[in-house]
């Protein structure tokens, strides 16, 4: 028992002062347990590949994955011109981690859709070449194959189309155009071989998008404790989480938009709603008029992409794509799977914790002329909020349980310190949405 004897005071002080510091360091080391961080905070590409291999089991990619309805897989997920083959998946994998697809060689898909960071970047908005910051939060690529449109405003109709846009966006990956992007890899004999095996033709930009999409269709993360509970194990989730699931379907009104069912189990209705996050800081009417002007001059997919990522018109959301008045400030309902790992939340990453998200909904969002009518003050008590949050933390895939637990601890700490979006008077309907705008505020 020699280590218990305190030899002298110095040693004692060293121990009591150093150990806690080491403990804190250890926590940070645990966060970066997988390896060193590279450009833009991303884990090194090779480390990511290794991590991914440990997460995804070997399987026959031509068959529908476990946890996904085979009918849905065949009819909804796989397009006619891009059936799954091992060669296409392998090509897509190489391209997903390929930093040469950015102008300065620092950014790949995996930079903002980092395997170690919830397949997103866990930042409010994403950072591209030259450290340029965009306007929007990066959605996760996990389970993205079950979404009907891509991007927060749904401007890309498929994974194939989505993959092709950031590469040529000036502040994301920065290539001047599709030709320049292709030129960065087309001379590589390895790529020439892989494109030929995958699609039977020379490297071309459309096939590049297809391959990345095929690879992303392997990101199936639908095996959460909640799924085991639904499959018949009552002990898989806590009683509080079960209360949360009841509230999710009932008083919380969550299921109205965050739809979960055996066909699409991810918690999104694939529609676009203005819940008032974007309303906080700007005049929608003026923005919409400017947008119509800008789009009248140049309205193709690439122009919308640039305006959405780079300018304040980003806040208009779906309106930029459809120009429908009902879509002003509307963004896609995000999936709730693995939600613990994909913070910060909302299209601008303005909410750090799931408690903040609940506070926002609880008070009825932010009133604005285009607020979705389904957003109402909910009058949820603190216990009820805790229960719904507890439920949401059961939605992370079991393979990511450790990260989930860390996220829970961290968010709990943050939420205990501050809840900037909480507004109990609004939540309990003592003050009503639109009341302050119309009658003048006294608070």
């Amino acid at each position, binding site marked *: 028992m020699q280590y218990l004897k305190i030899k002298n005071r110095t040693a004692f002080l060293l121990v009591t002062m150093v150990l806690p510091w080491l403990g804190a360091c250890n926590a940070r080391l645990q966060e970066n347990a997988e390896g060193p961080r590279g450009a833009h905070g991303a884990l090194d590409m090779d480390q990511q590949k290794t991590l991914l291999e440990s997460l995804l089991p070997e399987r026959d990619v031509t068959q529908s994955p476990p946890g996904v309805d085979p009918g849905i897989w065949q009819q909804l997920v796989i397009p006619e011109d891009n059936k799954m083959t091992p060669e296409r998946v392998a090509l897509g994998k190489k391209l997903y981690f390929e930093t040469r697809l950015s102008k300065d060689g620092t950014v790949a898909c995996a930079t903002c859709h980092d395997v170690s960071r919830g397949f997103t970047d866990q930042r409010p908005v994403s950072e591209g070449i030259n450290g340029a910051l965009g306007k929007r939060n990066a959605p996760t690529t996990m389970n993205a194959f079950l979404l009907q449109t891509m991007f927060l405003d749904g401007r890309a109709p498929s994974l194939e189309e989505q993959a092709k846009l950031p590469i040529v966006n000036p502040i994301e990956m920065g290539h001047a155009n599709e030709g320049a992007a292709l030129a960065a890899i087309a001379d590589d004999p390895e790529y020439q071989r892989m494109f030929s095996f995958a699609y039977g033709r020379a490297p071309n930009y459309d096939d590049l998008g297809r391959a990345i999409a095929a690879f992303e269709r392997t990101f199936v993360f639908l095996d959460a404790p909640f799924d085991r509970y639904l499959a018949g194990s009552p002990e898989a989730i806590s009683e509080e989480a079960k209360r949360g699931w009841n509230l999710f*379907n*009932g*008083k919380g*009104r969550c*299921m*109205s938009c965050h*739809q*979960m*069912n055996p066909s699409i189990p991810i918690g999104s*209705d694939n529609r676009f709603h203005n819940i008032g996050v974007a309303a906080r800081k700007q005049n929608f009417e003026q923005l919409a008029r400017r947008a119509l002007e800008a789009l009248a001059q140049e309205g193709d997919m690439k122009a919308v992409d640039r305006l959405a990522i780079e300018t304040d018109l980003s806040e208009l959301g779906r309106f930029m794509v459809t120009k429908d008045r009902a879509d002003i400030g509307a963004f896609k309902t995000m999936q709730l799977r693995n939600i613990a790992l994909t913070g910060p939340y909302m299209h601008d990453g303005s909410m750090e914790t799931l408690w903040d998200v609940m506070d926002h909904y609880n008070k009825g969002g932010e009133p604005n002329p285009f607020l979705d009518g389904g957003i109402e003050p909910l009058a949820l008590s603190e216990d009820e909020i805790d229960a719904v949050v507890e439920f949401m933390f059961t939605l992370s895939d079991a393979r990511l349980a450790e990260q989930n637990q860390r996220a829970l601890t961290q968010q709990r700490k943050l939420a205990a310190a501050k809840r900037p979006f909480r507004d109990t008077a609004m939540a309990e309907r003592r003050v009503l949405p639109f009341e302050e705008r119309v009658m003048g505020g006294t608070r």
Partner: protein
Amino acid sequence: MRTFKLLLGATLTLVSLMWSPGRAEQSGGDYPAAAKQDPGTDDAAMAQWKRRGQEPDWMAEELAKHKVLIPADNKGLVGKGQGSTYGSVTPEDVKVWQQETYKLAVEGSRIFHSGDRLKSTIAVSCDMCHPDGANTHPETYPKFQAQLGRVALLRDAINWCIENPVRGKKLAPDSPEMRALETYIYAQRTGTPLQYGKR
């Protein structure tokens, strides 16, 4: 003399007790006290009688306010039974069948039109959005309703409405109120072909 007076008093008391109006009830006869004959006698008892849902005019009152379509009369079945027990349908039978079915539909109409009976906390009743049961389309159930997360039956839709637009308390699926509401809603669409799954 004192004993005689005592006995007389006791006898008279006994006799008067035997002849008092309450005696008939206490005798435990087969029929409840004649509440319906003398409306002025006992208001408290009368109120209790009504509250048990035995209001004699409740159906007429409800039907004066709201139209409820009548169920099939089944008259064609009478008297053609071919000698089987099951087939021996009498006019009284078809009347009873129709009356009992109709009663539940009319009860459903009462609940449908009353925020109080639906236990609404915001004074909303079903008929506000569905006058005469319009736009309830019971013939389209069961159908998958993504916002309910499953294939919904009519009673699931009713319960969702009670929880949300009506902000009342959900009904147990086999509760009398739910059964009455379903009956009323089906009644108002009698004759419409079934089309399950229709949006």
